[in-house]
C-alpha cells in the first residue's frame, strides 16, 4: 500500500478545483450571476467532496453554488452482475437543474461507467445548460468517451491496482492510497 495523497493534499486539490470551477463559469455562454452553479456529488464520497467544494466556493464568492447529491445506482449497467445494491438519497437543490450548469463530483474516475449512469440520471431530473465533471483522482483506463473537466490528481495505475479514498467524515483517516 502506497500513500498518494495526504489530508493536506486533498484540501489543496479541492481548493484548486473550487477556483477552477468559479473561473470556468465565464466560458459557459448563458451563465448568469443570478443562477448559481449546481454541484452534485455522487454517493458516497463524491457527496462529501461536493460539500467541501461548495463550502470553499462559498468563502470565495457567497451564493455562487448550491450543492446536492445524485444517486446513480438505478442507472448502472452492471446491476445484474452483482447482488442488489442499496441506493442512496438523491437531493436536487431548490430551483432544480433546468438551464443551469451542473458540476458532477466523484472521488475516483476509472472506467467512466458511473459518470455515464450519472448523465442518464441527470436527464431524468431536467435539462441543464451544461454538465461538467470534477474528480479527486483520475486513474485512467476509460471504457467510454468521458473525461473530467477538473482533476485533483492524475494517477497512472495498472488495471488491477486498487485506489482507496478515505475521508474524515466517514472514515477514521483521510488520504488516498494505492494497493497492488
Amino acid at each position, binding site marked *: 500500500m502506497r500513500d498518494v495523497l495526504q489530508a493536506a493534499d486533498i484540501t489543496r486539490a479541492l481548493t484548486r478545483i473550487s477556483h477552477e470551477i468559479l473561473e470556468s463559469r465565464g466560458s459557459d455562454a448563458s451563465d448568469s450571476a443570478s443562477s448559481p452553479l449546481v454541484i452534485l456529488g455522487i454517493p458516497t464520497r463524491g457527496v462529501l467532496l461536493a460539500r467541501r467544494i461548495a463550502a470553499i466556493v462559498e468563502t470565495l464568492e457567497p451564493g455562487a453554488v448550491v450543492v446536492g447529491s445524485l*444517486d446513480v445506482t*438505478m442507472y448502472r449497467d452492471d446491476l*445484474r452482475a*452483482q447482488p*442488489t445494491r442499496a*441506493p442512496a438519497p*438523491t437531493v436536487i437543490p431548490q430551483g*432544480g437543474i433546468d438551464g443551469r450548469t451542473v458540476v458532477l463530483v466523484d472521488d475516483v474516475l476509472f472506467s467512466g461507467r458511473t459518470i455515464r449512469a450519472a448523465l442518464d440520471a441527470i436527464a431524468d431530473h431536467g435539462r441543464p445548460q451544461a454538465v461538467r465533471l470534477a474528480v479527486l483522482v483520475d486513474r485512467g483506463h476509460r471504457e467510454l468517451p468521458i473525461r473530467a473537466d477538473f482533476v485533483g490528481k492524475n494517477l497512472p495505475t495498472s488495471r488491477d491496482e486498487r485506489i482507496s479514498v478515505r475521508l474524515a467524515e466517514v472514515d477514521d483517516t483521510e488520504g488516498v492510497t494505492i494497493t497492488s
Partner: protein
Amino acid sequence: MRHLLSTRDLDRETAVHILDVAEDMAEVATREVRKLPTLRDRTVVNLFFEDSTRTRTSFEVAAKRLSADLINFSAKGSSVSKGESLKDTAQTLAALGADAVVIRHSSSGAAQTLAESGWIDAAVLNAGDGTHEHPTQALLDAFTIRRRIHGAGSRGRDLDGVRVTIVGDILHSRVARSNVWLLATLGAGVRLVSPATLLPADLTGWPVTAGSDLDAAIAEGTDALMMLRIQGERMHAAYFPTTAEYSRHWGLTDERFARLAPDTMVMHPGPMNRGLEISARAADSAQSTVLEQVANGVSIRMAVLYLLVAGGAEAHA
C-alpha cells in the same frame, strides 16, 4: 431476500432497509421524469386469482415506473378458470420468461407453495393469500406511519414506542396479520380491537394486546388508528347482528373521531365502506392517511421489486 412471502420472517434490519429504499423510490415521483430504467427487459407478472383493483394497479404502476415489462394474468378469462392447476400456470409463466410473479390467491399459503415448488425460478411476491398475509400492505402502512412521525428524517429509523391500534375483523384480515408481525418487529406496540367473534380464538404468540372496547382504546390514546374493512366476501356466517350495530360499537364515527388526539393518524387499507367502519368526516380529514397510503404503496412495491429483481441471477446464489 429471494421472495417476499410474509412479514413474520422479516428481521428489523431488512424491514428498515425496505422502508429506506422506498424513501428513494418516493423521491422519483417528484422528478421531471418519474421513471427509472432499472428493470428494463425484466418481466413482472401480476398473477391474480382473486379480485383486486388497488393492489394490482399499485404493482402495475410500480413495475412500470421501474421500466419492467408487465403482464396482467388474472384468473378470470384465463385457462385458470378452465381448471389449469397452479403448477401448469407457473410453468407457463416460467416459459414466458417471468422474472417476478406477484400472486394473489384466496388460499392461505399459495405464495409460499409457488415459491418453494421449483416450478418457476422467478421471485415471488405475496400480494395477499387467503387470510394469511399481505406483506406489502403492512410495509406501506409502516412506511406511512414512519413518514408522518419522522418526516424527512425517516431514514434508518424504526417505530420504537409508536402505539398502533388495529380495529375490525382481525379474524379474516391478512392486512392485520402482516401488520402485527411487522409493527412488532419495528418496535411498535400493537393493540387489537374487535368484536369477540372476529378475533382469532388463539392469540398465543401474537405480540399484541387485544380487547373489544374501542372507546377504552381511544381514551388511552394511540398514535395510529387503523380501521379494517368489513369484508362482505368473507362473511359467510353471522359474526355480528347488523352493520348498524357494528358501526355503533366498532366504527370510527364522527363522535369517536372528535375524541381522538389531533395528531392521531387515521388509517385504512381501502376500499372504505364509508359510514360503516369509518365516517366520511374521519376519512376525509387531515388526520386521514388514506391517500398517502395509496401513494406510498407504489413506493414500497417499487422498493420490493427492485430488491428482489434487479440483482443478477448469480447474486442469489
